[in-house]
């Protein structure tokens, strides 16, 4: 029954890539139907977080290593590309690679000591390293300390990723980013590595007895996840045009990156996208509608939503769809 419902692995993977392509086309056409500039900005942010949460999911979901320090990789990406552009005039198109390589390398280095720790000790260690770097950055004059860096605007340009009024170019930049990270996750799911990582996550002892080397597996997952997060940081910096330690390195950002993946469905292909599609609009719209009138209500709504979703759908929002697929299969069977 279970086999019939899910189809063979290849069929399932083909369905996923087709569904992914359909969603990609839909999202590419979406801004044409949305004239409102505010809503377009909201979609751009949602796409960014869909990519970031998927990047987190590669380490946290597939490999089971819950990091609360991913803001570090985001910040390294954001600062690398911003400094390259403002100090040396290097295009963000290169900065993207530099930021990705550096943040991936940083994730690898953080992993070297931290993957010796288990469970909650690992979570707190990633949190502490992230906060430590944020604190140092806020006191480091070379990168303007807590004042942050503004990216000056000269002219609309693709090489500088600079667009003052038009949101559309960034819509496609973020869509390409989210799609790329999704594709990486899809490839990982079907690869040897993907099976290794899930084995490591499910049962370390069993994985070891099958000859999987645990430590290198985790390091590889961390490096890919960190690099993918760093590229998101690069794109964010050029989209907003201003970065400081508070907005790119803080612990709260680490949580915001992880949250869509958890709420959507940790370790699943569609969870991060679903989670971002629900959480980011709710958070932004409640700030816009309720935040100005009475401070705090927006946070209450957001907090209550997180509690409700975590309790009602502990497996994540994807379980809504999985449940339906199973019922349909049962009907046909």
């Amino acid at each position, binding site marked *: 029954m279970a086999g019939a419902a899910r189809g063979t692995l290849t069929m399932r993977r083909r369905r996923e890539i087709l569904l992914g392509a359909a969603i990609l086309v839909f999202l590419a056409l979406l801004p044409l139907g949305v004239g409102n500039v505010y809503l377009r900005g909201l979609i751009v942010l949602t796409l960014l977080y869909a990519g970031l949460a998927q990047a987190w999911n590669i380490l946290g979901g597939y490999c089971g290593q819950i990091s609360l320090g991913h803001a570090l990789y985001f910040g390294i990406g954001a600062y690398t590309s911003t400094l390259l552009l403002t100090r040396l005039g290097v295009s963000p198109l290169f900065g993207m690679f530099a930021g990705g390589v550096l943040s991936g390398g940083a994730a690898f280095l953080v992993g070297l000591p931290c993957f010796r720790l288990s469970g909650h000790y690992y979570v707190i260690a990633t949190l*502490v390293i992230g906060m430590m770097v944020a604190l140092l950055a*806020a006191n480091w004059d070379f990168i303007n300390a807590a004042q942050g860096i503004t990216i000056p605007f000269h002219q609309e340009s693709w090489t500088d990723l600079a667009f003052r009024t038009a949101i559309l170019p960034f819509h496609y930049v973020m869509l390409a980013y989210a799609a790329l990270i999704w594709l990486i996750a899809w490839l990982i799911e079907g690869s040897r590595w993907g099976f290794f990582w899930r084995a490591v996550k499910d049962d370390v002892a069993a994985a070891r007895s099958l000859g999987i080397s645990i430590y290198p597996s985790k390091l590889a997952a961390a490096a890919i996840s960190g690099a993918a997060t760093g590229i998101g940081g690069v794109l964010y910096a050029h989209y907003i045009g201003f970065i400081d330690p508070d907005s790119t390195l803080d612990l709260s950002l680490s949580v915001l990156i992880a949250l869509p993946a958890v709420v959507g469905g940790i370790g699943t292909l569609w969870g991060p996208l679903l989670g971002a599609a629900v959480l980011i609009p709710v958070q932004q719209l409640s700030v816009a509608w309720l935040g100005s009138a009475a401070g705090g209500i927006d946070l209450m709504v957001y907090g209550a939503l997180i509690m409700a979703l975590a309790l009602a759908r502990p497996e994540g929002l994807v379980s809504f769809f999985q449940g339906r697929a199973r019922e349909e299969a049962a009907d046909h069977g």
Partner: protein
Amino acid sequence: MSATLIAQVAIGGLLMGLVYAVVAAGLSLIFGLMDVVNFAHGALLMVAMYATLLIHRATGIDPLLQLPLVAALLFGAGVAIYRGLIARTLSVRVNAGMVQIFVTFGLSIFLVGAAEFLFGSDFQSINTSLLGGHSLAFGAIVLPLPLVASGIVALFVFLGLALLSRTEFGQALEATREDHEAVALIGIDRDRVFGIGWGIGTASVGIAGVMLANFYYIAPDVGTNFALIAYVTVALGGFGSIFGALVAGLMIGLVEALTALFIDPALKQIGIFMIYLAVLMIRPRGLFGQI
């Protein structure tokens, strides 16, 4: 830099460390009992501080005399959180740990938002209290009285927690920690033990909140920083170890004060983080952790 100044800063740091230790003890107790990291711990500290402030404004009862009242209030809050939220997550089969993290995290956001909505985000403080404005002089070393009192109260909390383990309930707590399922066979109500465990954990943070309200500013996000330090303290001392929380709290208070004195007040937490990471490299389960 005189020896007296260094001694004064060090003792001040140790006293603050005792307050950190109490906050961490509540966290560690809950963790040790049922493997749940409470991410609303900082928000509960904030709730206790506002409760102290409001009771003080409404009735004029001095913060120090409110200790039993606020502790009881927070005990009730802890039991309610367990019954209303945490108990529901225990039946979750998939990634229960993540669900618990994010349920308590959502609660934290909710409470901070509620405080901001009700009281605004301005800093407030209790200006007139029995302890406020006084200081104790030991020779050339001068310490603010509220801080000294907080340290003494903190020691009593640890004494209480140590005595608790000798009571019948303390043994039920220990048994439940050892094996959640088996205790049911010997007539221990697991839900009741968990609920009371949560109550004691949040009552501890309530006591820390009352003492802090004597000399610390009160704002919706005041708990964030204390919670962060509490997580580090718990991990440094070893998850689940109350004694570890005490030792780690003292270490952290001391290192923080000395880093601020010798290096830079803006970097005082760097000292904490460095010590923490150094210890964890040598002892991956913290100083006294078994799990």
